[in-house]
């Protein structure tokens, strides 16, 4: 079945159009769906894009997590009807809603971090076998609240369930496991759980060599489970 991608636009989303363009450039039928809709129509793939939904009021992603469209999303995930990708603020929204475990908190540096980073697949998600262990992507990050945190009691389960999907790595230094642009637990950049994936870096901003990297093409293709172009 051809993927039908819905990109959810919340008040304050600002990567929605980039994300639509990125998926369209991969040949996927893609449209924007507004946050106040109550159904996802015929979408097979749903993307929560980056931005500052609801101005990051209360906590980043906290208010968007309870927008009307999110009830439809929770329902569709429960029925196994869709695959979900949360990018940056979208990842924060998924955690705030409890669709993914843990939370994203202020970068340890106290600074907004806007930089190119390398991320590496630590645990290939069962749902997306195209992501192989050790695969690396060069992707940009741009966030103030990207430090992944999880309660001690849930930490072991995160590893046991194979949810630790992506981590930041230093391509120039020795692989000490200590490179960490935002102070995330174990340098975690993204996690996955069943049909849901979330990451802080922006693959949709890395679609052409002249943007700095085209690794986002491979990343989003693997998420769509389409043959990369």
């Amino acid at each position, binding site marked *: 079945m051809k993927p039908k991608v819905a990109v959810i636009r919340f008040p304050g989303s600002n990567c929605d159009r980039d994300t639509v363009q990125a998926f369209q450039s991969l040949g996927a039928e893609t449209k924007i769906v507004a946050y106040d809709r109550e159904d996802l129509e015929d979408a097979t793939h749903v993307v929560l894009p980056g931005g500052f939904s609801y101005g990051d009021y209360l906590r980043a992603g906290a208010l968007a997590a309870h927008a009307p469209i999110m009830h439809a999303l929770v329902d569709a995930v429960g029925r196994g009807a869709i695959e979900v990708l949360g990018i940056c603020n979208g990842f924060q929204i998924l955690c705030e809603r409890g669709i993914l475990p*843990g*939370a994203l*908190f*202020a970068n340890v540096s106290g600074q907004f971090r806007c930089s190119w980073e390398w991320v590496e697949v630590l645990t290939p998600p069962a749902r997306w076998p195209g992501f192989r262990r050790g695969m690396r992507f060069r992707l940009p990050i741009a966030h103030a609240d990207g430090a992944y*945190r999880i309660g001690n009691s849930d930490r072991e389960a995160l590893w046991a369930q194979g949810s630790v999907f992506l981590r930041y790595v230093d391509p120039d230094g020795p692989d000490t496991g200590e490179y960490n642009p935002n*102070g995330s637990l174990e340098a975690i950049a993204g996690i996955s759980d069943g049909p849901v994936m979330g990451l802080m870096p922006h693959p949709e901003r890395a679609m052409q060599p002249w943007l700095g990297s085209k690794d986002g093409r491979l990343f989003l293709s693997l998420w769509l489970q389409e043959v990369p172009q």
Partner: protein
Amino acid sequence: MTQFRLRMAVTLKPEVLDPAGQATQQVVHERGFPEVSELRIGKVVDIAMNANSAEDALAKARRLGSEFLANPVLERFEVWVQSDET
């Protein structure tokens, strides 16, 4: 029904690093208060609600705190009744 005014303090758990608090504490030192040894920033939420009793109002507010206003991974909260208006 009585209207109760409640105040909720949402604070970071002690083990959670607070970059905003640290940056603020540094400027507090520079402004001539070197004796400040700890400064952590949280949120105060003022709530007015109708309820049959202070206990009912507190129970609702606690649910609101644990389900939404505080993130249990990072934060904890206290809530108390400020006043009631019959």
